[in-house]
């Protein structure tokens, strides 16, 4: 398996290197779909220039990166392109290893359930075989490295790649079962951009499953383990934040980074829903809707945890997608991360209802984004509504894609336990509905 992975890595690195040297690099770096006020490379350079001038980077409204990014790029600014390429490659390798391990877990669980006779007799075609699962990790690495979204995100040197890197290592640590490393990487991911906090729940569920601790609210071992994991996570987070304080000897970074993510003062257009909504919001309701939109990201966690407690990795996938869609400054790099997981659920293909339309919507919207941006900003013949419409369509496409996969997943689970050929009471073929 190593050789195809190395080939994929080489291809990805070649594509990125070629784009770095071409004239497209400047064009891509300026695109608002790729670089948001939170993770644009231009702003990292600006922050370092302000530090050189003796002004705190957080005294203005330009720089919203965490102090650890300042630490990192203060020394590595000359090798920035290399850093981002290596980050992408490491992310893909981490996902590869994680999915490889996950496949083993899935296969073992499937075998156990078959032996326990939990499955209906006629579901042989739904069971995943090792042959099917053999190429999935490679496909995941391929999907991540050669996804156009990831490539242009890397060429633009958006720090979203570093975000994805930390989340990928968090997923690897969780699936390997190491609670300590998982907590540390989760703390780093939360420190970088607040929203991975919601990934605490799926990680906890997976680790509990791996330790064979039953998830019952009255069980003492459940609470013990939860407290352990939560304290590991919180301690690492506190340590990282205190380390950041010592960089510039001030707490200025907290309102600049977290206050900025939560209160959304900068309305630069991006592929998300926040910017136009708050550009057109009545001042009186601004605070209320900011709170509503932020709660929207965090609020699906508990219901999903209850429904998907047996399938924490799928829960993690859905949660990652919800973060990418509803975060305050989304970019295509965030979309690329959850799309990398789609090959893991390729066995759900037969139950997906609208996959063709949704993939067409996503592809067309991706092409229309730069066109309508140009018409609004440069040609002056369109206005902001055109770009906003494509934003809406793209987000609807993403939402329906995720809910389609969710539907397919739940339907397959039903078929596995109740049998593939369902009959009604009078013997005729039955239809499944959600009631």
């Amino acid at each position: 398996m190593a050789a195809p992975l190395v080939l994929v890595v080489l291809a990805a690195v070649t594509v990125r290197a070629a784009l770095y040297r071409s004239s497209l690099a400047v064009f891509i770096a300026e695109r608002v779909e790729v670089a948001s006020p939170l993770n644009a490379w231009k702003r990292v350079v600006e922050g370092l220039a302000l530090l050189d001038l003796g002004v705190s980077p957080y005294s203005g409204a330009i720089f919203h990166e965490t102090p650890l990014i300042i630490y990192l790029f203060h020394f590595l600014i000359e090798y920035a392109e290399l850093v981002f390429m290596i980050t992408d490659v490491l992310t893909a390798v981490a996902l590869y290893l994680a999915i490889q391990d996950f496949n083993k877990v899935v296969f073992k669980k499937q075998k156990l359930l078959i032996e326990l006779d939990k499955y209906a007799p006629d579901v042989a075609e739904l069971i995943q075989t090792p042959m099917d699962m053999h190429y999935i990790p490679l496909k995941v690495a391929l999907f991540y490295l050669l996804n156009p979204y990831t490539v242009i995100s890397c060429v633009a040197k958006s720090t979203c790649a570093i975000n994805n890197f930390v989340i990928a290592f968090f997923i690897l640590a969780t699936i390997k079962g190491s609670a300590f490393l998982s907590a540390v990487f989760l703390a780093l991911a939360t420190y970088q951009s607040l929203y991975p906090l919601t990934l605490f729940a799926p990680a906890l569920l997976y680790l509990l499953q791996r330790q064979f601790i039953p998830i019952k609210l009255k069980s003492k071992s459940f609470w013990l383990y939860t407290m352990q994991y939560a304290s590991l996570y919180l301690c690492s987070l506190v340590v990282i934040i205190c380390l950041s304080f010592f960089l510039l000897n001030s707490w200025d970074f907290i309102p600049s980074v977290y206050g900025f993510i939560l209160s959304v003062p900068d309305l630069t257009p991006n592929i998300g829903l926040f910017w136009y909504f708050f550009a057109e919001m009545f001042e009186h309701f601004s605070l209320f809707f900011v709170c509503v939109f932020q709660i929207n990201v965090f609020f699906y966690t508990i219901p999903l945890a209850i429904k998907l407690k047996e399938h924490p990795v799928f829960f993690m996938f859905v949660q990652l997608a919800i973060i990418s869609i509803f975060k305050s400054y989304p970019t295509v790099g965030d979309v690329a991360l959850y799309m990398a997981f789609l090959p893991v659920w390729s066995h759900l293909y037969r139950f997906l209802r609208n996959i063709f339309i949704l993939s067409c919507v996503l592809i067309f919207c991706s092409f229309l984004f730069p066109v309508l941006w140009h018409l609004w900003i440069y040609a002056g013949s369109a206005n902001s509504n055109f770009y906003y419409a494509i934003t809406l369509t793209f987000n609807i496409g993403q939402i329906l894609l995720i809910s389609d996969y969710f539907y397919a997943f739940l339907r397959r689970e039903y078929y596995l336990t109740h049998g593939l050929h369902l009959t009604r009471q009078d013997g005729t073929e039955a239809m499944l509905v959600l009631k």
Partner: protein
Amino acid sequence: GRMAAALLLLRLLLAAGPGPGRADAGRERRDALREELLLSPLPTGDVAATFQFRTRWDADLQRGAVSHYRLFPKALGRLVAALGVRELHLALTQGFWRTRYWGQPPLQAPAGAELWVWFQPTVTDVDKAWKELSNILSGIFCASLNFIDSTNTVIPTASFKPLGLANGTDHHLLRYAVLPREVVCTENLTPWKKLLPCGSKAGLAVLLKAERLFHSSYHSQAVHIRPICRDASCLAVSWELRQTLTVVFDFFSSGQGKKDWSLFKMFSRTLTDTCPLASQSKVYVDISPKNKEKELLEVSPPPTSVHEAVVQGDKKTYAVYDLLSPSLFNTSRSLNVQLKWKRPQDSSEMPIPTLHAQRYVGGYGLQTGQICTLIYNTHPYRAFPVILLETVPWYLRLYVHTLTIITKGKENKPSYIHYQPAQDRRRPHLLEMLIQLPANSVTKITIQFERALLKWTEYPPDPNHGFYVGSSVLSALVPSVTAMKDVDVEQSPLFTSLFPSSDGSSYFVRLYTEPLLVNLPTPDFSMPYNVICLTCTVVAVCYGSFYNLLTRTFHVEEPSRGGLAKRLANVIRKFRGVPPL
């Protein structure tokens, strides 16, 4: 012996005689008004007229409770005393002084309204005092100075040093604000004229007729209040109020083809009498010859005297009309100074000022852009430094790592940079640099910016007109060609004593560049309700799908017993004789 002693005593008495009388008169009249009008023909054929009204008051506004105001206007005096103001400079300008073609101005102001104030060290909350001050001035001058708030106020560190007496300059006591969008009109001129001791009824102020003053290329009216030394020993402080008004009459629109000027042509009035409250009232006409031999201008009636001075590095000759001299008004009750050109203007001999600058916006589209400033040093062999102050509103996000300064093809690193980045909706960008300008060079300074999308309520009523960026300020000590002597403020003309001069080899110049007009991307202003509905619909689609999937479970569909429609269909089928559903 006794004769000599008596003569000595007599001489002493005579010397002391007017003394007590003068001191008595001085004790009654501790304030003095000087008026002055300077007419300077500009190289392009236009004429600039600068009025200066200077009231000097030997009282300490800060300490004693002053209640009797005579020449000094009470509104401004009480303002200075109550808010702890040490220096105040307010200018309202319409138009732009084209330094390249008109030469260095005696006192330039940026387009719009400019207010800069030094507060006393005793003021504890400078921002509060600043807000009160701008509101009170807004009322006094009928200008929208109440729009001055933290989003357009900056604290320069090097550019605006005090022009009056100062001991210690903590720049936290200084505030500077520019409102480039402010328009100047008759409404602002009238309260300005009311502050003059004679109003517009006598003296030079009778020429200030609004319909002629605003029919011009450049109109700037200013108020400057500063403390000065009472005498040479500088043991006591006097307060000086200067009201200046500069107007440039356009040759093409008001000259009607002929370049000959007269007071009547410019102001549609002539001078009839002097202000009785003024201790000095003079008209200066610049008749300096452009090259040494030939005279350029002929003035009539003949002047009372001719004054020579070195002003802004050049030797200049002025024809002086002293309105207080009795010989001026004896033939007719009106004085109409006329200027006739002796020979046609040669455009090749237009002198280029030593320091001039221009600024423009580069780039295209509504996403990014760059501000380019060009500074020209035309001195043939002397280099000198210049301080550049740029105030850029927060919605044009400057990137200081893109700042490039290029002189003669090479990079020119500034020796001092003070940069304060903007905070959204709270304060603007402030960039101050000390740049060395080599002799005979052009320096190009560029900095890139990004245009922000604002909330729909933050756009002005005409959003596609664009947003104004205030002029940048260039302050420099320009080396002068001719050595300048130290001037005594009381004896020399007012236009030479505006800026304090440190030595005779250079003179202080403050230039302003053009204001910029920048377009920002706009949202659609008719759509707030639609946008809220559509975005909430998308969020609701997600919520609805997830709610369904989370709360419902799969069931095998039960056949329905038959609704109303099915039963009706069966009835019709029975009529037709077809088997039922």
